[in-house]
């Protein structure tokens, strides 16, 4: 196999990555020639801004400080940038609630507390799964199975909880919005849970459930939505491609030997990235067959990050020209670019 990508200089981070699903978020700030990265370490988010020439790195750490300072500091489940047409926000989910920051991490603009019981219950409480949907919504999943829909104004901190979607019965694992930018796609959002159930939604004043794709008792740990196709990665190491609106299964891939932790798609080229506990990152290519309109998948490339259980993998651009990877216990973000 031709070497499709080569390894670049890694970016050091202040503390190592925790083993959490989708534990890497990337935001390109093209006008300033910068890329932002976030990686969660227990109760801290490591944030790095890297200049494209590779000469400047600046670091910031965000604590999971809660509305009320007296309560304990909680573990963070996920950090992700949400790109809306009017603004970018950095969203953190933890055991105590949801924090939304300006994209550079400087100001916390919104805090939503979860209902946490006085004494811990057998069912852990946390928020996980973050997606920006269409013009003004940020959706966040909760361990109860609820999906919270926040209405975000183009400016300021007047963010409101506009809707709670109650279709899942297991903890939400991940969420994704349609990323192709195509206005033809009916489905806007997909949510996944611990039983592997996938819910496909249309956004609006009231979110509408378009389809519920049943699981098969395996966690769906990472999910993406591209040109109406739901791409789901599971604890069994499988990737499945469903047509979102109909739930038709188009492809099933025995992709990894262990639990998948992260999927990402480059919307302009259809390149798909998958990463798992088996220390492998794979690159795939998705195409929509013009005759049948079916989605097809082809394997392109493997990269082994030796002795690392990978927890985060993301493309750094819309073409899939470069991608970045984090692994449990690693204090670096490893980058690869096309050769």
């Amino acid at each position, binding site marked *: 196999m031709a070497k499709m990508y080569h390894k670049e200089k890694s970016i050091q981070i202040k503390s190592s990555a925790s083993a959490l699903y989708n534990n890497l978020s990337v935001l390109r700030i093209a006008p300033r020639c910068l890329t932002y990265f976030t990686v969660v370490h227990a109760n801290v988010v490591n944030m790095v801004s890297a200049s494209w020439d590779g000469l400047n790195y600046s670091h910031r750490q965000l604590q999971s400080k809660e509305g009320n300072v007296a*309560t304990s500091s909680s*573990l963070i489940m996920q950090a992700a940038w949400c790109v809306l047409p009017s603004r970018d926000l950095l969203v953190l989910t933890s055991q105590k609630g949801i924090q939304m920051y300006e994209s550079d991490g400087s100001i916390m603009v919104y805090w939503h507390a979860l209902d946490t019981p006085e004494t811990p219950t057998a069912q*852990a409480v946390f928020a996980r799964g973050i997606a920006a949907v269409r013009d003004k919504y940020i959706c966040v999943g909760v361990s109860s199975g609820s999906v919270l829909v926040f209405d975000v104004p183009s400016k300021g901190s007047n963010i409101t909880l506009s809707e709670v979607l109650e279709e899942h019965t297991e903890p939400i694992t991940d969420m994704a919005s349609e990323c192709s930018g195509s206005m033809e796609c009916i489905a806007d959002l997909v949510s996944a849970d611990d039983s592997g159930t996938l819910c496909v939604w249309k956004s609006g004043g009231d979110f509408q459930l378009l389809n519920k794709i049943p699981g098969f008792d395996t966690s769906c740990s990472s999910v993406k939505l591209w040109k109406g196709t739901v791409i789901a990665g599971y604890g069994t*190491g499988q990737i499945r491609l469903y047509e979102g609106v109909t739930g*038709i299964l188009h492809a099933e891939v025995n992709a990894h030997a262990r639990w998948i932790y992260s999927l990402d798609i480059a919307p302009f080229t259809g390149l798909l990235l998958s990463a798992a506990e088996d220390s492998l990152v794979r690159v795939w290519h998705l195409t929509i067959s013009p005759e049948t309109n079916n989605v097809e998948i082809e394997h392109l490339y493997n990269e082994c990050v030796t002795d690392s259980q990978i927890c985060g993998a993301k493309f750094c651009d819309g073409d899939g020209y470069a991608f970045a990877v984090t692994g449990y216990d690693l204090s670096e973000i490893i980058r690869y670019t096309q050769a």
Partner: protein
Amino acid sequence: MSTRTLPLLFINLGGEMLYILDQRLRAQNIPSDKAKKVFVATVAEWIEEDRKRVMNDIITTMFNKKFLEELFKPQELYSKKALRTVFDRLAHASIMRLNQASMDKLYDLMTMAFKYQVLLCPRPKDILLVTFNHMDAIKDFVRDTPSILSQVDETYRQLLEIYTSLSGGEFQLIRQTLLIFFQDMHIRVSIFLKDKVQNSNGRFVLPTSGPVPYGTQTPGLIRMFSCSGEEIKRVQFRDGGNYTAALREGSFELFGDRVTKLGTNMYSVSRPVETHMSGTSKNSSQHTKVNTLPNPLAKEELNLLAKLMGGLEVQKPSHTDSGFRVNLFATDEEEEEALITRPEELSYEVINIQATKDKQANAELAKIMGEFTEAGDSSPSSSSKGDDLLAMMDGL
């Protein structure tokens, strides 16, 4: 994160501790010239009965009913320091005594062994099989003592009741919680280095060959389907590994073959307990990074800990002599050396506990603490956190 993690953490670390102590007690029992070197004056008369008694005493304490009631309540994990305090207490639940350096080494070995098992277990759910391997071995340690055996069986029943019904996702959350607990610990363990399962930088080797986890297909196949669900295309791809089909699933029953070897006893007299401390080398980047941020959880945690520790009874030695000391090192000199050279950041700063119900037990604890101090004292500089705990526990 998962509120179901603490019992598994405690039982598996406890199991590893028992393996190590059992092996050391057996090694010190061999009356050969080679073994004589490790003898300390007080253990010259070490006999099989004493080993059994030590093991029984610790297991009795570990599976104390009141203690386990507290342990099994849903709760967050303790900090590393707090858990270390629990194990210091547990290790001294018998007439056996460990000094600071040996206790540090014991704890390092226990934690790295369990970290290895958590990291390598094929599916998150297999953490339960690892736990059952420890439980099976513990039952074997006490097979001749029915009263303790029934105590252990009671815990077994509790484990089966609580954990067998949990979903894969819940086990993954437990695993992720454990991995956060073990994060940044890279102590090198000689038995792992020899077996080539650990690299010299302290990171574990992750194989890309061998059987895939139960329920997983070997990677390499793409299947595509038509709208009517017919398979229309089948493509193989090069997966970059060398995996084979899954083995049968291990038994999640009270008895049975667990299939995985993770969590079984890896020590024997011919494969003794030793450590290389990464701390003794200069590459400080591999040391545990201590989070210097103040932990606001401390107070809640100490409340829980105090409650938990209330259930941990310390055995009073029936002997009038001072009991015997176990050394985790080959010689006393090595042990002393280890204490002096242990890097600051690996120091656990054990919390001093003197809160006890009666004077007799108090004296016993004072003796334990005396034992720690005797060992050259870089030890219990009681932090403010420790003081809080003391105050709180004295107030009980």
